[in-house]
């Protein structure tokens, strides 16, 4: 079963890599057929990713939310589903796959590099609040991933020589992309709030305190503040367009740093098993 899981994982990496390449190549050189293959490969990638999760779930007996490997694996699944739902209703936004798929490829690459050791369900993980905590963390990740991809298109569309570089003209209208990015960040803040709140209720069940100043707790609040500030600026200072898009890119870097780098830097309760150094 472990071998089957590995086979599915590496097949999914190949599918994701091909999808990214076809997306980028098809977009730059206006090869519609290649671009379509890139889109089709996302579905194959999702199927293989689902099969990887299913195989692991079957032999471990619990969902993918304990080790870093499992968390990243399920993050990738949620982000891909999120992306597919998003573009299924907005065909003109298919082109953001050029940015979203490489980020997903990096994430699935990180999965392959994480220790895939077997994890067992300890009593502390048997909590409905943990499930809510992890689920909303994934929804936050999915929302900001698409918002970041949309903001990247805004920046590229505002490029001074956009008329010369014809492939940039295929990007969605910057005003629409900016507005959608704003909506997704508002959703991300809502999901992130639920993630922090459910995590604090879970912490209270475990340790009798809802806030323990753990580095990951603090850094998740930093991410929350960064996106909260974006919404506040948007409300009070008409913070739109290029400035807002650059801010979203920087905010994404802060989030990735908070969630995936900090656990390796500081001792935290979150790395008791999940982030083994």
């Amino acid at each position, binding site marked *: 079963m472990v071998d089957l899981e590995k086979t599915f994982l590496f097949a999914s990496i190949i599918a994701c890599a091909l999808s990214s390449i076809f997306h980028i190549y098809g977009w730059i050189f206006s090869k519609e057929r290649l671009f379509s293959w890139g889109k089709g490969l996302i579905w194959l990638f999702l199927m293989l990713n689902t099969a990887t999760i299913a195989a692991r779930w079957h032999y471990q007996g619990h969902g993918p939310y304990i080790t870093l490997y499992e968390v990243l694996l399920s993050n990738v699944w949620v982000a891909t589903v999120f992306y597919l739902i998003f573009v299924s209703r907005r065909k003109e936004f298919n082109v953001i796959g050029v940015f979203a798929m490489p980020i997903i490829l990096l994430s699935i690459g990180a999965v392959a590099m994480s220790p895939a050791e077997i994890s067992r369900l300890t009593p*502390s993980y048997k909590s409905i609040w943990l499930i809510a905590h992890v689920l909303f963390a994934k929804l936050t990740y999915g929302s900001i991933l698409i918002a970041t991809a949309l903001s990247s298109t805004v920046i590229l569309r505002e490029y001074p020589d956009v008329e010369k570089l014809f492939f940039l003209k295929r990007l969605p209208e910057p005003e629409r992309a900016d507005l959608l990015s704003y909506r997704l960040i508002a959703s991300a803040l809502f999901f992130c709030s*639920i993630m922090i709140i459910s995590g604090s209720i879970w912490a209270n069940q475990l340790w*009798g305190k809802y*806030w323990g100043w753990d580095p990951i707790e603090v850094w998740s609040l930093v991410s929350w503040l*960064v996106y909260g500030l974006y919404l506040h600026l948007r409300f009070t200072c008409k913070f739109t367009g290029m400035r807002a898009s650059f801010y979203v890119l920087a905010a994404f870097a802060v989030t990735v740093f908070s969630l995936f780098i900090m656990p390796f830097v500081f001792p935290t309760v979150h790395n008791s098993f999940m982030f083994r150094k």
Partner: protein
Amino acid sequence: MLTEALKSEKLTIVLFLLLLALFVMEGETQKVSGYAFLGLAAPLVLNLLFCVFHHIKRTKTWDMAQAGFILFHVAFLIIIAGGITTYLTYSIGYAEVVEGGSFTDSRESYAGWKQRFGTRSGTGINVAVRKIHLDFWENGQIREYFNNIVIRDGIKDQEATVNVNGSVKYGSLLINLARYYGLAPHFRLTTPDATNSGYVYISSTAKTNNFAIPLVNYKAQVSYRDLTDRRVRIRVRLNELDSIERVMRIGDSIDLGAGKLTLTDIKIWNGLTVVTDSGKWITYAGFSLFLLGLAIYYGTKFFWSGK
């Protein structure tokens, strides 16, 4: 002038940035004083109050979005109030208890105590640990862990189960598992003049502990290999040069010269915490209102407006 400054949304941005900087510092160093957060909370609360008041005053027609907007900003104030209440009222007592043993909720009986303000002396209730259930997966991770306890308040006995994810409530107290456990060998020292006895708590992480033997003032180290062990290894330093090292089973004795040390029992122990926190429910109320306000505001703005 001051009113104008306090109701400024630009000031909110500055305070937001300061709060962000403070959190980054705390995230980096873990040394930021609670007073720094309290110091920043004061202007933030004032700014929020003035902004909310100003927003209500200038709103001519009310709709759901406006209500949601006010609600999640007011919820911020409630969360800050809850956080400050917790900061001022939180106390935690840590007790190490062997299976079959008990402790009293009084400041003196705890092995560890933390309270920033106030002088909670304890309720005097007695908490007895009847059974410690600990089971492990084959890779050493905990499979099952809970305690059967009895709370005695002098009027009636209340039986309860403390789970890793489930506190036991008693009035305003919350009793939790502290997730520290191990073996506790019980020794009796007999000298020609007196007898003394007690447990030595060895944690499952270190599996060894140093202790001083009373009456004879020798230093000793005791260790075990596995939680199911019915024996311990002990090393007693008699002086700079001499020491005695033995593996002891229950009933075994060591002649220390100045006295006789006997291993009388080995029990499993675990840590329990007793917490008081008056701010928790205020914060939770703030959390709920915040989510409700945010959902109403952005829901109305983005999804239910028909645009």
